[in-house]
């Protein structure tokens, strides 16, 4: 058995028991679970293994090394801050589901084999769906349904891949794979769906903004980042990932630019940041993987911070669209400052966390002499200005005064934001604290005069372009068709059409045959059947003939 209590179980059990508790016990149970998980993974040095048997296959349910420890750490912190942000406003169902969701994501990160991984993967999908449903509107119910179908599709793909892998190799241990057979392609597809890679990406921007203000904070952190983690474990150095990463970056910038809904825009920025990590995984050198891991760590924090800030705005004003907001810095100073710090972090401004992590990926591109990749990453840095980096804080907190004067949100929400804002700056100023946790040794130095200056030039002049083109950007704001149009509208129409055609055809054919047979019967025997009896009798007769036909056919086949 196991020398270490499984951190994932701590959170999941806490989540399941939460609805039974009241008052201070409830809060205690909620906040202590992530802390326990954090303590557990940091009190054990080195790697830990824990095995058990299921379906006659040996599983390694707990495999702790530096990479999994990094992700467990950030997920635990995230769970804690998310709960702090949510616990006064969200319902018990949402909190409970969020704990299970966080626990399952820890389970994925700690899984040593793919069956354990898959089990936690599915729990994650279901728990996150409940988080979306907790949005409580009919739109969130529908979006949650589309979300869960998509993720169960990903689950089936992943499962098929794992089984095929097991069939090919006789093992289920989770280690690096190459995309050279069907098994790994299926696994890859399952992973990429959770990473929101196009064209399997629409679920994210479709579902996340329909969750509650606090729900989206949890959603932003776990699903995509666990996908990044498993890709890092399973497919490091797969060149296809570079292409997917760049596609995600470009696609999300375009959509985020067009988007008027603040939370939808931030949803696209999640895809954007995941794209950078996936690019890093595709490059696959030690520096690139370190960069991707570090960026995952810092992006969980600033992404959540941005969404908390946007969530506070939506919570306090009830308005979701950029065009309805503006000038809020006057009455929501804490939210504005925290939002700005998050924006600085996401745009990799020096002294904020994004700067020290994203530049590692760029540097890896340079080291591998990938000019186009480097250029695209630079463009992505500039492009962040166009959504979360400048568009979000500018249009929401400054720009035109909307006349809205909401206060800052309740204290617990403020505290959560302040905590994460401090973390963003702390990592940005003391990058060493993050670098020691990375899977490989780090020699990279982010703060050199020329690097800082280059980044400042890039960002400030992108900002200039933003301000100069603001009228164009605003004219473009609105809602968009994403890939979800294919399955929400197109497939739906096709299915309805097919169903109508098929049922009309079948009914016509049946009526025709029944009338004809009725005629024949009347002629032959003078039997007259009417109504239901006729259709019952004749449909049975038809079925009988089908059976005989089958017999005749197989008889003919056998001859």
């Amino acid at each position, binding site marked *: 058995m196991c020398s270490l209590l499984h951190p994932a179980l701590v959170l999941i059990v806490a989540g399941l028991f939460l609805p039974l508790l009241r008052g201070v016990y409830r809060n205690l149970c909620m906040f202590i679970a992530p802390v326990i998980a954090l303590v557990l993974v940091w009190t054990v040095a080195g790697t830990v293994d824990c095995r058990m048997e299921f379906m006659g296959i040996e599983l390694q349910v707990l495999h702790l090394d530096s990479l999994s420890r990094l992700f467990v750490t950030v997920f635990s912190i995230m769970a804690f801050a998310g709960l702090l942000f949510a616990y006064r406003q969200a319902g018990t169902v949402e909190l409970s589901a969020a704990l299970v969701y966080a626990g399952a994501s820890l389970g994925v990160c700690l899984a040593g084999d793919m069956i354990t991984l898959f089990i936690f993967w599915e729990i994650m999908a279901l728990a996150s769906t409940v988080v979306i449903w907790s949005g409580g509107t009919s739109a969130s119910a529908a979006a949650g349904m589309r979300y869960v*179908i998509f993720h*169960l599709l990903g689950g089936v793909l992943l*499962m098929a891949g794992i089984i095929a892998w097991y069939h090919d190799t006789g093992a289920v241990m989770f280690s690096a794979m190459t995309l050279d057979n069907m098994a790994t392609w299926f696994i890859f597809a399952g992973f990429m769906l959770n990473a929101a890679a196009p064209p399997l990406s629409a679920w994210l921007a479709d579902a996340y903004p329909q969750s509650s203000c606090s729900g989206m904070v949890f959603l932003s952190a776990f699903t995509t980042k666990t996908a990044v983690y498993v890709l890092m474990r399973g497919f490091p150095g797969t060149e296809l990932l570079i292409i997917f990463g760049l596609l995600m970056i470009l696609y999300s910038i375009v959509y985020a630019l067009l988007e008027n809904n603040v939370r939808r825009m931030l949803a696209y920025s999640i895809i954007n940041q995941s794209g950078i990590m996936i690019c890093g995984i595709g490059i696959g050198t030690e520096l690139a993987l370190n960069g991707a891991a570090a960026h995952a760590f810092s992006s969980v924090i600033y992404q959540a911070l941005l969404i908390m800030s946007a969530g506070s705005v939506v919570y306090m004003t009830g308005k979701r669209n950029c065009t309805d907001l503006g000038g809020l810095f006057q009455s929501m100073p804490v939210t504005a400052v925290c939002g700005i710090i998050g924006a600085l972090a996401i745009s990799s401004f020096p002294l904020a966390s994004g700067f020290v992590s994203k530049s590692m990926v760029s540097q890896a591109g340079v080291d591998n002499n990938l000019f186009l990749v480097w250029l695209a990453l630079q463009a992505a840095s500039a492009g962040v200005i166009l959504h979360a980096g400048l568009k979000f804080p500018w249009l929401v907190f400054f720009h035109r005064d909307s006349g809205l004067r909401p206060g800052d949100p309740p204290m617990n929400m403020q505290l959560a934001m302040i905590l994460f804002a401090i973390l963003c700056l702390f990592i940005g100023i003391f990058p060493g604290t993050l670098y020691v946790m990375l899977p490989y040794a780090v020699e990279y130095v982010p703060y050199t005069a020329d690097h800082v200056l280059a980044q400042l030039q890039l960002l400030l002049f992108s900002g200039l372009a933003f301000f100069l083109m603001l009228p164009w950007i605003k004219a473009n704001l609105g809602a968009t068709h994403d890939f979800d149009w294919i399955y929400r509208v197109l497939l739906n129409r096709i299915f309805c059409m097919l169903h109508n055609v098929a049922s009309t055809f079948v009914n016509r054919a049946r009526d025709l045959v029944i009338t004809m047979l009725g005629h024949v019967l009347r002629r032959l025997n003078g039997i007259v059947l009417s109504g239901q009896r006729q259709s019952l009798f004749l*449909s049975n007769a038809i*079925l009988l003939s089908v059976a005989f036909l089958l017999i005749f056919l197989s008889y003919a086949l056998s001859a």
Partner: protein
Amino acid sequence: MITGHLPILLLIMPLLAAPLCVLLHRDILSWFLALLVFLGVFAGAWALLGSVLEIEVWRYTIGAWESPWGIELYVDSLNAFVLVIVASIGAASLLFARQSVASEIAADRTYLFYSALLLNLTGLIGVILTGDAFNLFVFIEISSLSGYALISLGRKRLALYAAYRYLILGTVGATFILIGVGLLYVVTGTLNLQDIGVRIADVSADRTLATAICFLLIGLSMKLALFPLHVWLPAAYSAAPSVVSVFLAGTTTKVFIYVLIRYVFDIFGLDTIRGILPLGDILVLLSMLAILYGSWMAIVRSSIKSILAYSSVAQIGYMVLGIGLFTRTGLTASILHMFNHALIKSALFMAAACLIYRLGTDRLEDLRNSSGCMPWTRAAFVLGGFSLIGVPGTVGFLSKWYLLQATIESGNWPALAVMIIGSLMAVVYFWKIVEAFYFRQPAQDTGEKMTEAPLMMLAPLWLLILANIYFGIDTDLTLDSITLAVSSLAGL
């Protein structure tokens, strides 16, 4: 001494209890007698499985007339396992039955209901245990005739129509089976199943044999409701009294799938079958159609029992798919899914029965108006649904795992695609129900608050739900017996 006659005791107990039920006449007494018998069968079935797992095969000769002249009961781990499925579902249904039956069936007919249920059980046990081809037909008729009677007791007028339809098709199916058995007798000169299996190897593939096999297979397909011969099933399951749906959904079709497995793998053997017709391909094709068609119809239906019934059509597709692949893993998956699906579907039908007991309806539209009440029933339904769509930690996951493994192993990509699509469609129809449970605001406030279903109904329901989870985690018992059963079948 008694343990030495366990197989025949299992058969005789319900057979004798059936007329006794009629004599007792009082509804509570007849229920109690039936319950005792079902529990006895339950215990006996597990004991039988235990002993068969040790001695492998138990050939019980009736009246000490040696086979092939005498009639024997033939028990190996395969049919002992199927018997355990039937007995367990039966016991759970009987525990559940009392209040549901009292509310749906007129009090002066209740004793007849239990009597018919006992006869049905007798027939099913006979089909499972008998080692004689003609007796198999007789027991099929016993179970079917009592089945028609049970279904016709349903609340709605539709029940009569459904029972009549099932009667016609079921009789046709049984007749086909009888014709097949007759032709087999002509070819081999014996009616003992194992003996047929031995002698058929010497028979060259001639037309009589081919015809016999075709008649048998099509008759069985009708009985086990394989698409496109499934038409009796949806109406029968949705119109039958709730308890009957619970019992039939978990037992009847499984028993006939067992008979199919017995004939194809044990009696005929794959070599004989392959020489006559491409049965594997036909079964895989039909089961793929069954999965798609059943799931689609389940999506467009609007009452719970009807959705569950069509879902059964699809799930039968999964079981037959495993058989049609003609591989060890496929067969394992198929038998495992028989067990798992019995647990899943009976639990879901029980939850539906609880809703009908309190609300008097299972239409989704009406359920929307009563959201918020009966939390335990709804929670049980959701857990059962999780098992249906194969969430890890439930038995449904194991089925999905082994079925996917079987399809991937045999490299049957169309089947794999159909399975993936089918599992997503299952999510859709399951969701339709969950949505009605939890995510709709009541259209009008009825004022009265519905109470939870009585404990006597909730307890067996949750027992099955817990079994869904227990057997989803502890796989030793099921997989061990199935592995033994599969390895005992010839030709794989």
